[in-house]
């Protein structure tokens, strides 16, 4: 079972996001970087499947040189190979260009004799939230894609994927090769060991430079949502606040 997992380097944000002066990006001066929980779960899922069924795992990202940090972290979780599609740090890549760049890399790897049975993505990128890169690549490869899954069972030549809805699960059965986009909760990602992290730093990362073309979609700028600022109403302190809380709940009609 050969699996490719695509991840994206994003800032590790806290409660408040500050923008750069040109309003083009989050100010990351005081922030670390990470990749999204969805993608961390996708990495864990790939490592787990290969531990059970055997095979090869590759983690891929499109990003600046510094994104090797995220590739190394994924390797310390157990991914065997890494590919960096190296770009300049500044501009955002739109989903269409991103999908094309990843597709070109997959086809290059296939031309070198590598085969993939499954491609894993996060359900959506943490920052841009485009919900489409995995689906675009599946379409280009003419592979089936099950999006937003929370459970994946592998059987002979096929996969059974489960999506959660508000009231239960939807089950999809697809033949391999296939693309899956994953949601956090599909597993509990392992925490890499210190020796594992040190070993990952010494592993080789294959690099290439992707091409970007002009697209019809353009980001103009970012902004912080305008909060309709309402002063918080303090209902009291400790247990003594209970009557006021219940009064409020009755006014809202949630306690009758």
């Amino acid at each position, binding site marked *: 079972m050969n699996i490719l997992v695509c991840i994206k380097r994003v800032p590790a*944000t806290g*409660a408040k*996001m500050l923008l750069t002066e040109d309003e083009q990006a989050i100010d990351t001066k005081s922030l670390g970087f990470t990749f999204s*929980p969805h993608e961390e779960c996708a990495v864990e899922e790939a490592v787990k499947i290969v531990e059970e069924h055997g095979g090869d795992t590759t983690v891929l990202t499109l990003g600046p040189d510094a994104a090797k940090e995220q590739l190394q972290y994924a390797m310390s979780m157990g991914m065997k190979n890494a590919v960096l599609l190296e770009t300049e740090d500044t501009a955002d890549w*739109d*989903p*269409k260009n991103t999908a094309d760049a990843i597709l070109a890399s997959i086809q290059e790897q296939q031309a070198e004799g590598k085969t993939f049975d499954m491609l894993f993505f996060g359900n*959506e990128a*943490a*920052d*841009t*939230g485009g*919900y489409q890169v995995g*689906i*675009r690549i599946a*379409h*280009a490869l003419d592979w*089936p894609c099950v*999006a937003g899954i929370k459970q994946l069972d592998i059987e002979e030549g096929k996969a059974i994927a489960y999506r*959660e*809805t*508000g*009231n*239960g*699960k*939807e*089950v*999809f059965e*697809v033949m391999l090769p296939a693309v899956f986009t994953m*949601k*956090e*909760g599909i597993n*509990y990602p392992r925490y890499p060991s210190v020796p594992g992290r040190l070993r990952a730093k010494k592993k080789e990362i294959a690099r290439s430079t992707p091409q970007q073309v002009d697209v*019809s*979609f*353009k*980001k*103009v700028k*970012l*902004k*912080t949502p305008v*909060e309709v600022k309402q002063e918080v*109403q*303090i*209902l*009291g*302190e*400790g*247990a*003594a*606040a*209970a009557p006021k*809380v*219940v009064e*409020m709940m*009755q006014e*809202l*009609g*949630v*306690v009758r």
Partner: protein
Amino acid sequence: MILALVEHDKGVVNPLALGMLNFAKSLAAEQNCALEAVLVGEEARSIASTLGAFGVTKVHMALHDGFDDYSPEAWAQAFLSKAETGGAKFVLSIGTDRGNEVMAHVAARTNQSMVANIISYSDAEMTRLRWGGSLLEESTLADEMKLMTVAPHTFPTEEEGSAVEVTIEDYSPEIAEKDFRVKISKRIVPEADGVSLTDAEVVISGGRGVGSEAGFSVLEDLASTIGGAVGCSRAVTSLGWRPHSDQVGQTGTRVAAELYIACGISGAAQHMAGCKGSKNLLAINTDPDAPILQNATYAVIGDLHDVLPAINAEIKKVTG
């Protein structure tokens, strides 16, 4: 013409899709064009006549033997074929799991851009959500046929203004066999009693401040008294105190409760993205400077282990 996909499950309309229609209705007025809708599958027929209340003048019923359950590629093909034959300028769906998925397939098939989760559109410029709504992006889209999904919980889902007359037309799109390769083959309905996070009027969520797995019993008690659901923050699922299905946040469940009670939750952007759709937020926190208070409607300063049992007792007293 604006063409909107109205999401449904086995003939039951997703109410969030009605929010998208209210947005589409105002866009149609601004663009001075008609609003038409696609419903996929015979099961959805009963929805068609109700859409006049949302400004839809024509409903296209996509019919095919394979439309007996959800199948993303087949839905996308049915939707796309009507958009193309109708010369749609705007192709819209709701930014839910299914809505985004179908639109992404339409975008892949046409090799066009897709803009997810917009909250406004005017003069070819739109605003969309980033970081689950913690940031906004202004962007432009030059395509003749614009593919966009509309952010859920952004526009009212109730009908507004007077209804228009709807005509209903059936059509039979050509769908390739392989477009049904991804299709729901089975549904698993949990035996769980109680209300789900997405349906609950009141959600009581706990963060690291709950202190332990056992500490959630006070949240459970209050939830059972008022018929609410218990949620939690990402910190809590990472600690293994609650299953991930209880997680409210950008990478968990998005809730839209009448009242969201955040107990011992600091208010990280990851969490707020999941609960900001709620109408009222009560924060219970020992720290009067916790960031969550910035986003709260109401607050009680104190230990949730004292406050929640007191609220529970008070409700029992008041309601007898």
